[in-house]
């Protein structure tokens, strides 16, 4: 690989633009694995409901953050939701997500869920974003899904 060096203007100093990659691997766990395989196999977003406080968590999680109860009830939530908050990333270098900048990140409350779900928005003009706008999940075609959170390509605005 060609190294990138640059001589600084007016100085006898050279700058290296280095970039190393740190490989990471972790297990999605029992609950996370079921969430992801359902996403892949059925194109369906699952949450879990706490039997004590009735909150529905998306993505699914096995312990309630409010009452610390063990959760074991799976529920299906809709693929439509409401934007709780968003952020536009124009300077996404290096690109963590396989999309071109600008990337619009958003926290979405899916219909039937009580928690926010972080993902990206697509097919959207950054100027036309607003909190509270309605969005819908756009899934990848089934043969491209690999049980990743990116099996949902993005959420697109709906009227």
């Amino acid at each position, binding site marked *: *690989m*060609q*190294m990138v*060096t640059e*001589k*600084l203007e007016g*100085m*006898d*100093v*050279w*700058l*290296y*633009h*280095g*970039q*190393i*990659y*740190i*490989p*990471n*691997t*972790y*297990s*999605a*766990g*029992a609950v*996370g*694995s*079921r969430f*992801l*395989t359902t996403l892949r196999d059925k194109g369906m977003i699952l949450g879990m409901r706490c039997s004590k406080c009735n909150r529905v968590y998306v993505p699914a999680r096995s312990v309630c953050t409010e009452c610390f109860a063990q959760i074991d009830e799976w529920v299906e939530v809709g693929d439509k939701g409401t934007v709780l908050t968003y952020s536009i990333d124009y300077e996404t*270098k*290096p690109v*963590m997500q396989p999309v071109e900048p600008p990337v619009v990140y958003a926290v979405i409350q899916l219909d039937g869920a009580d928690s926010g779900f972080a993902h990206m928005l697509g097919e959207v003009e950054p100027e036309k974003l607003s909190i509270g706008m309605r969005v819908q999940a756009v899934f990848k075609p089934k043969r491209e899904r690999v*049980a*990743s959170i990116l099996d949902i390509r993005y959420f697109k605005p709906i009227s």
Partner: protein
Amino acid sequence: MAKEPEYIRIAYKAPRPYDWSTGKYLGKVYAEAKENKKLVGNRCPKCQYIWLPPTPVCPKCKVDMGWDWAELPQTGTVYQYTYLVYPLWDPHYGEKWANPYPSATILLDNGTFYRHFLEEKDREKLKEGMRVQAVWKEDYNERGQGVQDILYFRTIEE
């Protein structure tokens, strides 16, 4: 029978970008290599040894080196070498270098020690004391990476 649950492993590579500056001493070496294909070091005012990589303070005499530069000869003698089997890692990008040339400490003809690669990969032909000469990257635009502007040292007959 209940189906065995499928467990998902999530793998990703986290990029860690960083900038690294040579400083002005090493910057002089980079500039001479790129512009003139010259190997330069700085000379200690006390012991007269020429250091490459250059240094602001002489490691032997612990005195200020000043700004006294000298061109180094590009021929030398293999002082010692090691045959690399496992490829080196590029420290800036974390990738494996494709060509693991033998790595050698070369005694340049003025008496400066310098570490670089040898072109000769045949183990039978490698020996201490062999005469070598620097081979530069010829393309101006490919130079600008300091010591890596020299590809390797080639065996010469004298």
